[in-house]
């Protein structure tokens, strides 16, 4: 199994993610510097909380250019929850630029439409593949993942939509552009389903 790097930039608890990858048999390294990123055969960018705060934290750890370079290198890069949103160009939530690895932006769920939509979405929901992919092996139907978010991504290039979920309206819950993959939900809080998905990702 390869070494999975998890970007540790002071945003959220990377514990569950680290433990889940170890549980799946991977070697995990927490990455705090550009040097650490270079040692990772595959990289995970987690994130919880506010967009601008996360981008500022990445900047202060001098990880912005190294992450952009990593994304351009072709090595597998996985963004989770806010980490996925950081991969895009920008977000309605903040003023700073994202990493720009996937064209598009994040938008807030609106409390409009028939029936009040509770924001954030906090709970289990399913993901439908936008097109077939080895990432969905064993998860094509009958899956569920744990979501906690107020913003959702909107890709400029529809080809980058990998998975769709409905919460009041359909939205993109998984993205892929080449080697860069994103998941809106928390696979590390989605027990057996998360484990399967991360196993699939590791064998990509």
């Amino acid at each position: 199994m390869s070494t999975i790097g998890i970007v540790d930039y002071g945003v959220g608890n990377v514990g569950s993610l680290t433990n889940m990858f170890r549980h799946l048999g991977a070697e995990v390294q927490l990455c705090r510097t550009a040097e650490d990123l270079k040692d990772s055969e595959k990289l995970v960018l987690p994130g919880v909380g506010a967009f601008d705060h996360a981008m500022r934290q990445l900047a202060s750890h001098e990880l912005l250019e190294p992450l952009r370079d990593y994304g351009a290198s072709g090595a597998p890069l996985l963004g989770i929850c806010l980490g996925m949103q950081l991969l895009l160009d920008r977000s309605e939530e903040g003023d700073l630029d994202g990493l720009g690895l996937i064209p598009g932006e994040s938008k807030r769920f609106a409390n409009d439409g028939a029936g009040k939509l509770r924001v954030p979405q906090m709970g289990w929901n399913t993901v439908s593949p936008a097109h077939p992919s080895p990432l969905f092996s064993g998860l094509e139907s009958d899956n569920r993942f744990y979501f906690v978010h107020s913003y959702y991504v909107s890709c400029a290039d529809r080809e980058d939509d990998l998975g769709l979920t409905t919460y009041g309206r359909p939205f993109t819950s998984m993205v892929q552009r080449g080697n860069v993959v994103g998941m809106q939900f928390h696979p590390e809080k989605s027990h057996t389903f998360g484990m399967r998905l991360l196993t699939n990702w590791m064998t990509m």
Partner: protein
Amino acid sequence: MKIPPRVIPVLQLSDGFLVKTTKFGNPRYIGDPINAVKILNDKGVDELVLCDLDASAGRSSIDYELLADIASEAFMPVGYGGAVSSAAVARRIVELGIEKVIINSLVERDPVELEAIASTIGTQSVVASVDVSKGLMGRRSARIRGGSEQSRYDPVGFARLAVEHGAGEVLVHSIDRDGAMGGYDLESIEAIAKAVDVPVVALGGAASDSDFSAALAAGASAVAAGSRFVFHGRRKAVLITYPDQSTIRRL
């Protein structure tokens, strides 16, 4: 695909160990919390609740280190209850990787602070526990401070007050039925489910799948249990179990 109802194990902590109470008293040693979480991970449990009995009763402060360890081990969302007394405490708990906080005494003692908690971490992360007991006269009352004090409010009033001040979920917890495995307090569950718009979770007395079904039929959105998941058999041997997915779908 219809999402199955949530079936939530409740783990009680005392002095860093897992215990199980009866009527909120007589804690019996169960084992190590981290080990229990690992077992529950393997069983694909959807959600977990942790209650720190010492913190609730004011005997100790919140064990943040243990909570961080448990949050790191858990492959599912976790809720925590016990001495959650302010927005700062709630934020700290959520930043450790815990998804929800469970409040009880605060509903009566300081509803304004409850509002502050809800605006800090979101109403969806705030669960109000209504601890229900039938007094000598047979009338139900709500209790606070780990069940040691009577609330000014009756259970329905307590639940309404909590929701008005920001609780996004209500846990209906029967003190009398706690640990007895004699079925849930269905009357309280039904009354509170009718009185509030937020999801209601049943706790206290579950012994079997038919108890879960009865609570769901009475209006609960989710079912929680302690003894049902940590004990096995008449002699109550310690064994952590959890129903499989096909059973949960049929509830």
